């Protein structure tokens, strides 16, 4: 059932590529918190290896969307599937993570009492079972993966320092490093550039671009310069639903997007903004 609807959707959207399934599919997803519709009829498809940037004003439902995908909250209705086979609406956080969905939180959430190295060891790809954690030593592949991640995030010489001693930007990088060590299929990155200097932001952008292709990457961002640097395809969320999708220029020149960001124009649109 799940598979067929996924394929149908794929044929409907892009009939020429019907052989390749979507990485992530959200269809008619709804979620409300005590009457507030955080997400309403959200439909979104992600291709494998895509780098998608999601923007939207405050309260557009961006972080809630990530919560729904990662199992932190469950949708009231709708479909969320990974790779046309796994129904994410019925799974726990750790089960979804093990399918290869990794998330970087908005505020850096590394383990501050652990060293940089230990943070990466916790995240590194491999078995999560109690038994293996107790008795199986670190595999060679895991070691090289952790070393690669240390290299990439430039914290190699600080690997034995406590993560709590890192600067804000370095913590952000460490968390990105934890995602890398995990080698996920789908990376969900919530405001990676927040609190970073211009140079750090630029480096983060380059890193994310280099990840696309091997991984599917979803980036939520506010900083438009950063968005312009990395974005291929941008999705604008507004009031919990997709306002429009397209390239950065398309989106920036879109009337509705301008309205949403800069406030309504003289004529109040009847029934709110429609896509």
């Amino acid at each position, binding site marked *: 059932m799940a598979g067929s609807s996924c394929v149908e959707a794929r044929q409907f959207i892009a009939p020429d590529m019907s052989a390749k399934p979507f990485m992530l599919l959200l269809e008619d997803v709804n979620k409300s918190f005590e009457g507030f519709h955080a997400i309403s009829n959200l439909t979104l498809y992600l291709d494998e290896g895509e780098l998608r940037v999601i923007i939207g004003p405050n309260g557009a439902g961006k972080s809630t969307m990530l919560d729904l995908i990662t199992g932190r909250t469950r949708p009231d209705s709708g479909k969320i599937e990974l790779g046309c086979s796994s129904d994410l609406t019925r799974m726990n*956080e750790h089960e979804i993570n093990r399918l290869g969905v*990794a998330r970087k*939180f908005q505020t850096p959430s590394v383990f501050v009492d*652990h060293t940089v190295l230990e943070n990466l*060891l916790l995240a590194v790809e491999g078995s999560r*079972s109690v038994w293996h954690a107790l008795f199986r030593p670190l595999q060679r592949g895991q070691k090289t993966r952790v070393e690669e991640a240390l290299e990439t995030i430039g914290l190699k010489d600080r690997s034995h320092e406590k993560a709590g001693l890192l600067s804000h930007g370095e913590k952000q990088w460490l968390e990105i490093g934890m995602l890398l060590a*995990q080698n996920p299929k789908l990376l969900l990155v919530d405001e990676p550039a927040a609190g970073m200097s211009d140079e750090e932001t630029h480096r983060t952008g380059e890193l994310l671009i280099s990840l696309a292709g091997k991984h599917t990457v979803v980036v939520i961002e506010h900083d438009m310069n950063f968005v312009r640097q990395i974005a291929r395809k941008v999705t604008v969320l507004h009031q919990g639903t997709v306002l429009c999708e397209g390239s950065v220029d398309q989106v920036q020149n879109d009337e509705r997007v301008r309205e949403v960001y800069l406030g309504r124009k003289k004529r109040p649109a009847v029934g709110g903004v429609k896509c």
Partner: protein
Amino acid sequence: MNLAGKSYGRLEAMVMASCALLGLVIMPVCNAFVPEGHLLHVSGFALGVYGKYCCFAVLALSINLLWGSTGVLCLGQCLFFALGGYAMGMHLMLMIGKLGQYKADIPDFMVFLEFPARYPETGGLPPHWIPFRSFPFALFAVTWVPALVALAFGYFAFRSRIRGVYFSILSQALTYAATLLFFRNDFTFGGNNGLTDFKTILGHDLNAPGTRRMLFIVSVLLLLGVYGLCRWLASTRFGLVQRAIRDSENRVLFCGYSTVHYKLLVFVLSAVIAGVAGAVYVPLVGIINPSEMAPDKSLEAVVWCSVGGRQSLVGPVLGAIGVNALKSYATHSYAEQWPYILGVLFIGATLFVPKGIAGIPEQLKQWRARRALKLANSLPRT
């Protein structure tokens, strides 16, 4: 690449080494070979007291495993301690044989409570007591009874994501309920008198100096063993996950770990450790009754941990031994005031030495560094 947790302080190494030296060599030797009345003589009574402290230290380590390392505060840890104690007590009770007051085959309280009328087919012994005639079975029960209780309680609590103070309150309710249950005479565990008047263990007279010495050595070995186990656990990836759960359980979930499994294993393990400590405690003190599992006992054990310092492994050991030594002294001289002393100790530790006794060296170092900085700033600039 090495995992942290392997680098532990000098203080810890020193304390544990001196524990081993004192407990395994010096004290038994001074007890056995130094004549009575000599300055260096350690009496059998003193050995019993220190053995008791060792059991308390093991109990504190079990709380620390759960609270200090995993962030789960169980206010009912003495339930597991007492369950282990009861399992051992049942065996010792059956070993009294005909030496009791009533010269009967069954323990005295069973005669007194007219059990022969209730269980005529076994001569008055309740059926679940029968296997406790065997010492190996009793030893086995010392571990699996607490483990089973912890498994059942922990499974439902952790699966329902009961955390923090809610878990603490629930665990306190559990131990309170168990206390009330054990107070009942018809629960077949001796009611409020509990189990006492033990005579022999494995055929040896419990009051003989040699037996007391052996029991003391066993308690020291247990302490060292449990300490080693905790140390090893902290050095594995399991220990990493454990501490990560303490600091941010949600983040651990998003790293793909099923925190329920990890917390459950820690909970069961700490219950087993507490149970074993209780089993060694009972022959040392010669009695087990429901007041051992009353909520205030568990609270007291939590105070040992926090006074000693729950961020380290040696802290709970120092706390348990220190606070109990103080208690022995205080209840002797100021019996009425003991609860107040304990309360002040807890508040004082929380306010002034948040990392406990074990954290004092580090705190002093920071204090000195701050003072040096202040001094440097106050000097006139040239």
